[in-house]
């Protein structure tokens, strides 16, 4: 059986499983559509949250970004896990006690203002749509690879699949489907990593293999450092970027995690306040299984790639085009070339492909002496690394098919969760909550589905010119959530002083400064060449656009405090509401309007 058929088989089988579950657990009422009737066990909920949370960014993109940058991109690892601490300590139990369906409902009630609720909805929509763009990129790459077509067509096919998939059920269908998706994606991520770790270090646990020794007795990371510096790249384990930027970037990802609606919504679905606390922990357990493996995947893939291009060592002769075209060990290069995400060019016509850093003066000397005319691996999209990894390591065909299914599971589960959050924001908060309160349940569900379709169209259009690799696009979404939603939620629980005007002004200020900063660096609506600055040379010192969320959050807090201080005090019944949210006692089931 050839690889193409095998990929189709694995992807097809996994889809059949999800659709089967979705039909079996189809949502009937609105309450089931949004919150699965609050009957979900913390461990199950944790697994579903993990699937919901770990998207194309975590699965497809992150290890590639770590592989090619090394230590500096540890921010992704710390940022996307550390946020759960904030969620568990500062938000989850209180929002569960409050007992409503959506994040904007809490903001609307706590800040006793329809405007606050509306602003919260807008913030959610901006962050969620940016997030969906990143997922679409991942879906496009995965479909492009396994159908062996250009990534652009992959994106369009992916968008149709996401839509068909998301309208099928609400949260209830999604919860059980996501448990299945978690199992698929974690298996798909772990199995190739175990194989590769065994090949390189003899240790079956990749997380330990990362700090283990290779066959010649040298530590893996020391070997990697040696090879990449020989080729003129930055030392893998050393810090090269700005410390300030790294701190702010990590912080943005952390508070963004705690401000994303589709993750927070999960904690409304556990039966009790104490379960909400445990649930955050279980989510992180299941997330950590992937996140502890990811740095190993990155480092080991980087080592394998360097070895493939320099089969005779970095001092020897580079790989020849003849080998790339004929040796089955290099067949991955041919298949990925078809997606347009991998490219090479024999610039000096010597029949070999030299892969090195041609911006490094030392390597330029060596290149001049050897007659090289620049790096000949001209394009290596970071987002293909995880999907290509099992092929690069020559793992069996079924592993490659499994990884394709896993990557799609990750992207689809998150896209579905986000679309659900978007549709509930529009139909439940915007239409039913504000514009047309007398809407029937049936038309509310209809509105939910229409807004899903609209969100997909918008994100595909914006995703045609993605502002970065999938994980970087997603990082921007986190920055937006960090700057707008998280501060409002936190102040709503921990401060009685913040009033309606303060919260509205804070959210708007945080959202606007962050959005403008991002657009100034990534182009207005991500349209190329409309940017005034680049992340290589940012507007404010070392602060890149992906790191600005933390600054935006600070602006949000400051504005909210100042405005609240100048306007009318919070009324007594709101102070009582805050008091009651702080105490778990008496948390009943959630109540709808």
């Amino acid at each position, binding site marked *: 059986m050839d690889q193409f058929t095998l990929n189709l088989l694995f992807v097809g089988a996994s889809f059949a499983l999800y659709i089967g579950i979705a039909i079996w657990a189809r949502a009937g009422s609105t309450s089931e559509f949004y919150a699965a009737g609050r009957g979900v066990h913390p461990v199950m909920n944790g697994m579903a949250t993990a699937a919901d949370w770990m998207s194309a960014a975590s699965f497809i993109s992150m290890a590639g970004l770590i592989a090619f940058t090394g230590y500096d991109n540890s921010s992704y*690892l710390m940022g996307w*896990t550390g946020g759960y601490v904030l969620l568990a*300590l500062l938000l989850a139990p209180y929002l569960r006690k409050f007992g409503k369906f959506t994040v904007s409902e809490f903001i609307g009630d706590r800040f006793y203002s329809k405007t606050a609720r509306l602003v919260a909805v807008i913030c959610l929509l901006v962050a969620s749509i940016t997030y969906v763009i990143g997922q679409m990129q991942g879906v496009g790459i995965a479909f492009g690879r396994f159908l062996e077509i250009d990534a652009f067509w992959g994106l369009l096919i992916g968008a149709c699949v996401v839509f068909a998939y998301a309208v099928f059920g609400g949260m209830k269908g999604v919860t059980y489907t996501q448990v299945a998706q978690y199992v698929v994606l974690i298996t798909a991520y772990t199995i190739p990593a175990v194989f590769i770790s065994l090949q390189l270090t003899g240790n079956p646990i990749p997380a330990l293999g990362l700090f283990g*020794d290779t066959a010649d007795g040298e530590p893996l990371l020391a070997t990697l450092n040696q090879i990449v510096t020989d080729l003129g790249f930055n030392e893998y384990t050393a810090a090269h970027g700005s410390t300030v930027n790294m*701190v702010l970037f990590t912080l943005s990802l952390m508070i963004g995690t705690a401000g994303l609606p589709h993750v927070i919504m999960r904690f409304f679905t556990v039966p009790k306040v104490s379960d909400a606390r445990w649930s955050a922990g279980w989510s992180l357990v299941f997330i950590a299984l992937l996140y502890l493996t990811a740095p190993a995947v990155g480092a080991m893939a980087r080592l394998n790639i360097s070895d493939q291009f320099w089969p005779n060592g970095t001092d020897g002769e580079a790989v020849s085009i003849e080998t790339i075209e004929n040796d089955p060990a290099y067949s991955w290069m041919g298949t990925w070339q078809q997606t347009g995400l991998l490219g090479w060019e024999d610039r000096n016509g010597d029949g070999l492909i030299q892969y090195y850093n041609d911006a490094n003066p030392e390597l330029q000397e060596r290149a001049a002496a050897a007659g090289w005319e620049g790096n000949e691996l001209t394009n290596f999209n970071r987002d293909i690394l995880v999907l290509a990894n099992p092929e690069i390591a020559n793992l069996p065909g079924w592993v490659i098919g499994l990884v394709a299914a896993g990557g799609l599971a990750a992207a689809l589960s998150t896209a579905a969760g986000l679309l659900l959050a978007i549709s509930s924001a529009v139909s439940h908060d915007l239409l039913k909550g504000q514009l047309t309160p007398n809407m029937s349940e049936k038309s509310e569900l209809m509105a939910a589905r229409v807004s899903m379709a609209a969100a997909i169209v918008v994100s595909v259009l914006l995703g045609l010119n993605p502002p970065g690799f999938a994980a970087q696009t997603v990082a921007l979404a986190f920055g937006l959530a960090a700057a707008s939603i998280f501060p409002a939620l936190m102040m709503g629980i921990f401060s009685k002083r913040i009033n309606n005007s303060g919260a509205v002004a804070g959210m708007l200020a945080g959202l606007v400064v962050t959005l403008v900063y991002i657009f100034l660096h990534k182009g207005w609506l991500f349209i190329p060449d409309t940017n005034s600055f680049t992340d290589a040379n940012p507007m404010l010192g070392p602060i890149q656009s992906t790191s600005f969320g933390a600054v935006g959050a600070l602006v949000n807090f400051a504005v909210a405090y100042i405005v609240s201080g100048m306007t009318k005090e919070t009324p007594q019944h709101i102070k009582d509401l805050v008091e009651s949210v*702080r105490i778990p006692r008496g948390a009943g089931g959630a109540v709808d309007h």
Partner: protein
Amino acid sequence: MVDNTSSTPVVTEEDSVYWKTNLRIITVCLVIWALVSFGFGIILRPMLSGIEVGGADLGFWFAQQGSILCFLALIFFYAWRMNRLDKQYGVDEE
């Protein structure tokens, strides 16, 4: 609105002690949270560079794996501690 039927809406002395204890636990947890990630993983990494861990240094380990393990420990500790505190102050759910 929040279902208040099974509790008194007025804040008792006990409740405010409970909340203050909660805030203290949160503060301690967040100090550790920041220390293992922003501290050991980033800012204090040069100070830990002498301690070698499998071809890299301790700071690198914290940045790539150690902080995640600490986060896990923190969340489970907090859940366990708070559920005990809830019972102690009688504010838990039945």
